[in-house]
């Protein structure tokens, strides 16, 4: 049969954003693929060069609207490395709690978008319902629903409101029960298993070589996690362990493993949040004033000439990294260069190549299982 190229995207339910997957097919089998990115390139790195260090945080929020808090944190750690800022421990705990709540919300968004890919529309409504609980919590911290602008260089914008901790505990405990419900619905659904098992294999070594990171690699049976390997924040003080799957094939992790590892990660996030609330210095039901030394330390605003800052941060989709060079305009008030490394930028071309050999109908399952996000890919 003659082979032909099909263009999926930029507007296509499979793409989860704006990008194009060009697929060469032989009948129904995918024989070659090409990824095309750049549809929503906003030039964030260039914009950052004309902003001072504090003004950059909102742009980092907008790199990915699904996990704004983790992206802002990621930038903040790089800026703190550059400006040599100290952070109070309570602020580190609050950042950890907010990042893990964001991880829950982000994974729920992923699951909710992944369900309809597989034909399970119920999942979307359930996940949106639960995600709203966590967005409400983040809104209490940051003031807005998606783009929080919450972490500051040297601390956080404001302390947890009174009663926040109790609401976190209540919602997290409720969600842990809901996770069991999800698993009852999905793991016993034949359609779910048939669509995911044995599809989209990827081995650990090939993924690492190609620059894939985070849950996608942990699904292939390796417990590498930035929070564990290059600990930042207070992850070394609280009780958790990297979630890891046991892939069933020599060909590595399939879509089902990647689904499982994220479910497990949500459990770990719940565990981390609950444990951090117990250990937070200053107590969980105290509210320190804005700028109090418990939650904020004044940081220098100018970076020394030639200094660089780097952060390696476990974002919800893998390792997000910032590399910031100081000494730009305004005698070092602006960065000279900000470079953003998004985990998905390298993952999407890799995933496009893993589809080769599967059927067209498997493309949404494979793509969705890697949790693509185009906002952070195109930057």
């Amino acid at each position, binding site marked *: 049969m003659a082979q032909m190229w099909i263009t999926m995207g930029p507007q296509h339910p499979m793409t989860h954003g704006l990008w194009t997957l060009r697929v060469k097919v032989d009948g129904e089998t995918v024989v070659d693929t090409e990824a095309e*990115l*750049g549809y929503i*390139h906003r030039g964030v790195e260039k914009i950052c060069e004309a902003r001072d260090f504090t003004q950059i945080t909102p742009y980092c929020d907008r790199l990915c609207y699904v996990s704004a808090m983790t992206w802002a944190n990621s930038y903040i750690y790089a800026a703190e490395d550059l400006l040599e800022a100290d952070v109070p421990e309570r602020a580190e705990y609050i950042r950890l709690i907010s990042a893990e709540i964001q991880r829950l919300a982000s994974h729920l968004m992923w699951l909710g978008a992944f369900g309809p890919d597989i034909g399970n529309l119920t999942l979307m409504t359930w996940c949106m319902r639960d995600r709203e609980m966590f967005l409400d919590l983040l809104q209490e911290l940051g003031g807005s629903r998606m783009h929080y602008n919450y972490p500051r260089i040297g601390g956080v914008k404001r302390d947890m409101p009174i009663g926040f901790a109790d609401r976190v505990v209540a919602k997290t405990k409720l969600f842990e029960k809901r996770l069991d419900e999800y698993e009852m619905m999905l793991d016993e659904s034949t359609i779910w298993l048939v669509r995911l098992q044995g599809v989209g294999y990827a081995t650990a070594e090939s993924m690492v*070589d190609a620059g894939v990171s985070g849950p996608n690699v942990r699904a292939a049976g390796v417990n590498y996690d930035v929070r564990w*390997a290059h*600990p930042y924040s207070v992850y070394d003080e609280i009780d958790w362990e990297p979630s890891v799957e046991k892939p069933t094939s020599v060909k590595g992790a399939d879509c089902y493993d990647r689904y499982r590892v994220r479910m497990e990660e949500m459990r770990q996030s719940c565990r981390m949040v609950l444990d951090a609330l117990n250990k937070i210095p200053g107590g969980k039901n105290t509210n320190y004033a804005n700028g109090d030394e418990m939650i904020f330390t004044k940081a220098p605003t100018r970076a020394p000439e030639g200094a660089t800052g780097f952060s390696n941060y476990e974002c919800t989709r893998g*390792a997000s990294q910032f*590399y910031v060079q100081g000494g730009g305009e305004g005698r070092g008030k602006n960065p000279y260069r900000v470079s953003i490394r998004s985990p998905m930028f390298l993952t999407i071309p890799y995933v496009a190549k893993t589809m080769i050999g599967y059927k067209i109908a498997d493309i949404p399952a494979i793509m969705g299982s890697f949790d693509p996000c185009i906002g952070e890919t195109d930057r």
Partner: protein
Amino acid sequence: MVGSITPEQNATAAEACLAAINGRFGGSGIESSIVNHSNDKKYAFVRIVCPPQHWIALAKWMKYDLGVNYCSMVTGTHFPDGSPERGWEVAYHFLRQPIQNQKPNTCTVHDVEKLSGMDIPMEFEVFMPLPQGDSPTVPSIQSIWVGADWNEKETWDLVGIKFEGHVNMHRVLNPNDSPEGFHPLQKQHKLRYHDHNEMYDDPQGFMRKPADEGRIK
């Protein structure tokens, strides 16, 4: 609880890497040092300054002998006002991750206390200063790390660093029909900062006469 890599493990591993690099490449113009992050944890990483002509040899050695299996980031920077030897700079960030393929139905959960030698995760930063000029060129490491492929594409696309030997170089973030030689992160492309007055006093811009009209901020 799995625990995390301790500062002692991290420091030991960094020193071992540094000794290995100096043992292999000492005296060839490749300078390496151990640097600590300046945030809370003060974790150490290895910083290498490498001239372009030694880059391929160093990269292959890093990948196959030092176990550096992850090319995470390639950053180009333009220094039009820099010294003649440093008009451009390429910064590479690498990670060493203890990762291998698994047998079916197994997984590896590393016990931090038992990790040693090449299994301890480590960060590497490689700087490559390039002379002033219109065509900064470095050898491509696309064939050594697959992950470097799209990173190099992006760096060429945005900054204009040429990667010699890179197969299938094309625009990734800019439109495919961008003019040749247009690389927006080069410093001759200025970005104006519209300050508060300019943005809010006259949002529709009918009467706009910013104080610094005609000047680049």
